[in-house]
C-alpha cells in the first residue's frame, strides 16, 4: 500500500467512568487509514467501533495515545479548533437523525459550508455534481420529514461530500434502512471513493455492508483482531 495516509492512530485508548466503574472502550489501537479507500470498521456491539470512529473524527477526546487526521495531530487542538477542523476536513453520515428537521434538503447540504462561512459561489459546481451523482436534484426543496430514509441518507452523503473533506465518516449509515435502500447507499459511498477519490471510513456491524468496502478492520473488546482487504 503506497497511498498516503488519511488518518492514523498510535496507542489509542479510551475509557469511560473512573475507579470501580471504569470501562475501557479502546485498549491500544494502532491503525493507518490510507487515502482514497473505503474502509469498513466492523465488530459486535460494545467492541468499541463507534468510540474509535468518534476519536478519529475529533468528536471525542482519547484517554491516551495520538490521532492524526489529514496530517493534523488532534490532541493539540482545543474545542474550538477541533470544531473548525471538523468543519474543514471531516464529513459525517450518521445512522439516524442526520438532518435538521427545520431545514430543507438543500439547506442541510449547505449547512457545514455555511457554518464555516465559506462562499457558496465557489462550491456551486461541486454542489451540482454531487447532487446529480446522488440523484437528489429533484428533492432539494423538501424537508427531511418528506423524504424516505434512503433519500435522507443520500442528502446526508451529499452534505458530507460537498466540502471535499479529507475523510468521510459513516456511522452505521444503513442501520435504519431496508435492504434495497441499504444497497443503494453503500453503492453511492463506494462510487464516491472510486469516482471522486474520496476517503470513506464506515462503522458497521453488518457483514453485507462491509462487502462494499476495500478494507475491513474488525474490532473486539477494544482491540483490532483482524485486518483484511476485500476481494474485488
Amino acid at each position, binding site marked *: 500500500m503506497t497511498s498516503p495516509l488519511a488518518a492514523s492512530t498510535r496507542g489509542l485508548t479510551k475509557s469511560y467512568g473512573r475507579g470501580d466503574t471504569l470501562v475501557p472502550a479502546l485498549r491500544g489501537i494502532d491503525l493507518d487509514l490510507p487515502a482514497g479507500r473505503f474502509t469498513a470498521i466492523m465488530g459486535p456491539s460494545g467492541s468499541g467501533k463507534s468510540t474509535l470512529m468518534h476519536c478519529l473524527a475529533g468528536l*471525542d477526546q482519547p484517554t491516551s495515545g495520538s490521532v492524526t487526521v489529514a496530517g493534523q495531530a488532534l490532541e493539540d487542538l482545543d474545542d474550538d479548533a477541533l470544531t473548525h477542523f*471538523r468543519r474543514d476536513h471531516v464529513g459525517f453520515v450518521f445512522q439516524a437523525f442526520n438532518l435538521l428537521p427545520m431545514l430543507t434538503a438543500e439547506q442541510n447540504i449547505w*449547512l*457545514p459550508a455555511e457554518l464555516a462561512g465559506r462562499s457558496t459561489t465557489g462550491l456551486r459546481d461541486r454542489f451540482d455534481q454531487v447532487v446529480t451523482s446522488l440523484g437528489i436534484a429533484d428533492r432539494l426543496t423538501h424537508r427531511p420529514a418528506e423524504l424516505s430514509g434512503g433519500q435522507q441518507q443520500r442528502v446526508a452523503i451529499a452534505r458530507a461530500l460537498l466540502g471535499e473533506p479529507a475523510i468521510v465518516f459513516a456511522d452505521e449509515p444503513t442501520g435504519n434502512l431496508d435492504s434495497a435502500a441499504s444497497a443503494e447507499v453503500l453503492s453511492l459511498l463506494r462510487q464516491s471513493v472510486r469516482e471522486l477519490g474520496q476517503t470513506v471510513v464506515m462503522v458497521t456491524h453488518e457483514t453485507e455492508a462491509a462487502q462494499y468496502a476495500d478494507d475491513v478492520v474488525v474490532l473486539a473488546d477494544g482491540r483490532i483482531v483482524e485486518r483484511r482487504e476485500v476481494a474485488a
Partner: protein
Amino acid sequence: MRTVLLASLRTHTRRYGAALLAVLVGVVLVLVTASLSSAVRDGLTSGLAEPYDGADAVLGHPSPDDAARLLAAAPEQGADAWLLGWTLQQLSHDGRVVSTDSDIGPVADEPAGRWQELTSGRFPDRPGEAVLDNNAAKAAHLAVGDRLRIGTGSSALDVTVVGLVDSPSTYVVASVYVLWTDLARWQDHLYVSSLAWAGPEPGYDGARDAIRAVVPGAEPDTVDAFVQEVQKDVNRGVDVIAIVALLFAAVALLVAVLVINNTFTILFAQRSRDFALLRCVGATRRQVVRSVRLESLALGLLAAVLGTAGGLAAGQGLVALIHGQWPEARLGDAEVGTVWLVVAATLAVGVPVVAAWLPTRRVVRVSPLAALRPDDSTQVGTATGRTRVAAGVLLLLAGTAAFAVALAAAVPPALVAGGVATFVGVLLLGPVLVPALVRGLARLGRRLMGPAGRLAAGNAVRNPRRTAATTASLLIGVTLTTAVLTGLASSRSALADEMDDQHPVDIAITSARALPADTVDRARAVDGVAAALPVTGTTAEVAALGDVAVLGVPPAGADSVLHGKVRTPGPRAIVLPWDLIGDGLEVGDRVAVTVGERTVRLRVRAGDGWGEAALVAPGTLARLDPSPRLHAVWVRADEDADPEDLAGSMEAIGSPLGAGIENGLADRAYVDLQLDVLSGGVVGLLGISVVIALVGIANTLGLSVLERGREHALLRALGLTRRQVRRMLAAEAVLLATVATALGTVLGVVFAWLGVRSLVEPVVTGASLVLPWTQLGAVVVLAALAGLAASVLPARRAARTAPAAGLALE
C-alpha cells in the same frame, strides 16, 4: 401507578421549577396586597373616633363660614365646639421652605376638644404658638422652640413651636396645629371635615338644636353614626385600591397559567414515549391521565405551601419596612384574614391544575404503539386549526366593531370589550402571526446574525403553537405596559396644557407696596432661575378690598417667563384672584378702582395663577397711574429646579419686603409627581407579569434545549462552535422577545389611542395621543435584553453538549 407518579415527580421536579416560580409570584402578590391593604385600613381607621370623644353631636362638612359661626356661638351657649379640618400652606423655617403644601389644622381652645396627645412641651396658650405632629417634626427636623412661618405675603403667620403631639387619627391629622384665632385668617382656604359639639347638658337632641339655632337646617349626626360613616368611606377607598392591585395580580396569574400550560405541553410532548410505553404495559387511559393530573396537583400543593408562607412573610416584611423607613405613611398592623389565605392557597393549587388540564387530555391521544417506533425525535408542529383561525378573525372583527361603538358613543364597556376581544383574537391567531413576524424579523437581521442566527430563526418557528404560547405570556405584559405608558403620557400632555392655563407663572413675587428695582436682579441671580421679569403696576383701592396691587398685563417680554398665556383683561375690565372674590364682590360687578384722585370703574373678572394682585390692561394702568412702579417679579424656573429650594430663595427675597410668593412650580411638580408615582406603580406591578413571562421564555428554551440535544450534537459535529451554539440560543430568545414586544407595543399604542379618543378627549379638550418614544424604546430594548438574559442558562446547557453525545441510537 403510585410508583410511576412518585418516580416521575422525582425525575421531573427540576423541570417544574419555572412553573412553580410563576405561580408563586402571583400568589405572593395577592397576599402582599392583602397585607398592605389591611395595614393601610388599620392605619386609617384606628383612632378615628378619638377626636370626637366627649362630643354630643358632629356636623359633617360644614362650610368654613358656618364652622366659624358655630365656634363663635359655642361659648355663649356654655358649650364646647371644636373643628377638624385643615388648610394647605407653605411652611418655612429660617427662610428655608420646609414644605410648599403643609397641612395646618386647629387645636381646640378648651382641653375637652384637644384630641391630640401631647408628648413634649405644652399646648398653645395664645396666638402665635403652635404644636407639631411628631412624625411631621421628625421628617422636617423641627423641634420645640423653633420659629416657623406659615403662608406667604400678607396672610403669613409667624409661630413658635411650643409642643409636640401624636395624632391618633389619620383621618384628621395635620402637620402643624394652631389655635382657631390664628387659623381663621385662611378661612377661605379651609377644608372643614367636621365640627364636634359638646353642650352643657349631655345628649344629642340638645346639641342638635343648639347647632340648628346657629346654622338653620344643619343635619348633625351622633358621634357613633358619624364615625361609622367615615369608617365606611375609608373602607371603600382602601377596597378600591386593593381591587386595582388584585387586578394586576390577576394579570400575573393569567400569565402564570400560560407559562405553566406551555411547560406542561412541552414536558408531556417530551414524555409521550413514556406515556405510550405505560399504555403498552397495561395502564389504562384513565390511569395515565390521573397520574399526570396528580403531578400538577402536587405542584399546586407545593406552590400553596410556599406561596402562602412566602406571601405572608413578604407582606409583613414590607409593612415592617414601611413602618421603619416612612413613619409618616402611618400604616397600621397587617392582619391577613383567613379568607385571603384560602383564596391564595386555592389559586396556588388551582392555577397549575387548570393550566395542566388541556395538555393532559392531549397526553392520552398518543397511541400505545408510538413507544415501539424508533424515535424520530422531532414532531413537526401541527398546522394551525381552521376553527382557531376563524375564531381569531371573528374576534378581531368583533373587537373592531366594539371599538367603533366606543369611539362613536364614548362607552367605556364597549372599549373594554373591544380590547379583550381583539387581544384574544390576536392570541388565537398567534400560531400564524408570530412565526410570520419572526421570519420577517429574521430576514431583516439576516446579515447581522450569521449562520447561527439563521438556525435560530428556523428553530423559533418550527413549532408555531409553542412559539405563540411562549410569546403570548410576554405579549400580555407588554401590551398593558405600553397602553398604560402611552395613555399616561397623553394625559400628562393634556394636563400640562391645563397646568399652563392654571399656573402661567412658575413663581411670582407680588407686593401691594412698590418693590425696590433691584428685586428683579436679585431674583434673576438665584440658582435655578431661568428668567425673571419685572411687572409694573400700582397700589390701588379696589372697592371694599382695600389696597391691592394692580398690574398691567401683559408685561413686555412676557413670553420669556410664561407658560401659555396669562389672562389679558380688556380696557374696561379688571381680573381679580378668586381668593378676593366673594364677600359682596361678584364676577360681573362693576367696581371703582382708585389711585389717589383718579378713579376708573371696571368690570370684575376672575382668574388665578399670578399671586395676590389684580390685572388690568396697560392702557387702564396708565389712566390710573402715569408712572407705574415695580410691584411684581415673575420668575421662570429651570426645567430641573427644585420647587421648595426655589420657593425658599424667593421667600428670602420677598419676605423682608412684605411680598407674597405664588408657587405654581410646586403645583406643577406635585401633579408631575402624582403621574410619576402612578406610572411607576402601574409599570412596576405589570413588570411582575413581564418577569413571569421571561421565566416562561427561559423555561421553554430550556426544555427545547433538552429536546434538541441530538440536533445540537449533530450541529457540533458538523462544525458549530460552542460560542455559535450559545449565539443561536440567544438569537432565538431575542427574536421571540422582540417579536412579542413589538406586537405588544403596537397593540398597546392602538389601545391607548382608542382610550384617549373615547375617554380622555371628551373630558379634556385638546387631548391627543402622545407617544412616549423613550419609554417605548426602553420597553423594547429591555425586553430584548431580558430575552437575552433568559437564554443564558439554556444556552450554557446546550453548549455543553458533547458532539459525540446523543448521536448513537439509545
